[in-house]
């Protein structure tokens, strides 16, 4: 079984040299810590920045410089700023290579739900619907099961969708499931150490090819 850091490191292996990448809030943010040697990626922040740098040193925070998680960040020698409209034109137009996002549920047809739970106060979808619809490749980084033990990779999402048929890869603490194209079935790519196929199947609801 992978730790959260190992899960993030596994996701980082999907980064290719020259990629433009958007990382979601939460666990996906950790991926930035594991970018492989020799792989140069440029991070996009959908509030209007390409080339996101690390957090600032204490005392150097700039309130005019935040990421989409509203965290203070820094710029790099490659950084450019632009409006929200230009930022989402970049996303919607398919110019971002990869987005790594969290999810509450993923279905085996690629549907994803990660923005609302009926009956609870809904905070809003922010840029998530735009990202899953526009970015070339969508990787979901999530725990394999919910707190009640139910599988999060399902035959169908029960929560309201963020996007339909959009997910390309799921990386949980147990395994990597992926498909070569939208519309294709998911397939088991890799098992975490100590996990075998039966264990995985026992904790999974959605269909995947072994």
């Amino acid at each position, binding site marked *: 079984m992978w730790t959260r850091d190992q899960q993030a490191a596994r996701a980082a292996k999907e980064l290719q040299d020259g990629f433009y990448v958007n990382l979601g809030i939460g666990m996906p943010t950790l991926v930035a810590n594991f970018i492989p040697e020799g792989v140069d990626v440029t991070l996009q*922040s*959908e*509030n*209007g*920045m390409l080339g996101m740098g*690390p*957090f*600032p*040193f*204490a005392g*150097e*925070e*700039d*309130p*005019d*410089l*935040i*990421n*989409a*998680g*509203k*965290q*203070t*960040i820094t*710029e790099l020698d490659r950084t450019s*700023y*632009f*409006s*929200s*409209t230009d*930022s*989402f*034109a970049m*996303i*919607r137009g398919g110019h971002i290579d990869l987005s790594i996002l969290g999810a509450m549920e993923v279905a085996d047809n690629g*549907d994803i739900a990660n923005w609302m739970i009926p009956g609870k*106060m*809904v*905070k*809003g*979808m*922010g*840029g*998530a*619907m*735009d990202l899953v*619809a*526009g970015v070339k490749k969508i990787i979901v980084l999530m725990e394999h099961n919910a707190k009640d033990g139910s599988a999060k990779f399902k035959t169908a999402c029960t929560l*309201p*969708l*963020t*996007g*339909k*048929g959009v997910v390309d890869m799921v990386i949980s603490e147990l395994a990597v499931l992926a498909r070569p194209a939208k519309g294709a079935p998911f397939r088991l790519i890799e098992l975490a150490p100590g996990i075998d196929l039966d264990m995985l199947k026992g904790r999974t609801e959605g269909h995947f090819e072994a």
Partner: protein
Amino acid sequence: MANKLYPDAKAALDGLLFDGMTIMSGGFGLCGIPEKLIAALRDAGVKDLTVISNNAGVDGFGLGQLLETRQIAKMISSYVGENKEFERQYLAGELQLEFNPQGTLAERIRAGGAGIPGFYTKTGVGTLVAEGKEHKDFATASGTETYILETGLVADVSIVKAWKADPYGNLIFRKTSRNFNPMMATAGKVTVVEVEELVPAGTFDPDHIHTPGVFVQRLFVGRDYEKRIEQRTVRQREPA
């Protein structure tokens, strides 16, 4: 030249406000929000507002101030997670809320300013966002895909925060405080702008201007910007 300069937020909003009006307010989170104009709206007491803004401020700051005074009847936003008073009013049925995906919201505002009443997007297809909207198929490189129709947005007044302006109303924004501000400047019937610094005419390199003066009707310099930080994240210096 027609004078665009006003002494302060109150003067800049004078004669523009009426109950039930629609206001666009720039900013992402608390970054690049028109602090002074929001405070002036609160002081003016105008009510039943429809406010188009990506977020709703926090309790006691930004648009949170207009929620406390119950001046907002409806929000059009993409994310409102940072505000307890918002949640209370919404759950009590006192506040209407229309969620838009952030990119759809940004594009709707651009469209409104650009004379485009509607456009098609893939964002939200197959979700609650698509319900009741016209669907249309378009041929793309990867085959036929379904898109939904989204409409342009305009406002009676847009309130915008820029970094610097010249007397012609040309604007320059700073870093990620640009966000929704330039588009909202184009989509207000009247656009009122607050800046940190007014520079003499001719100071800007004309290749660097983000918002041309044609979009700016009124302008003033704000003092003592608070610029609150929502998530102060820092790293430690490596030991030498």
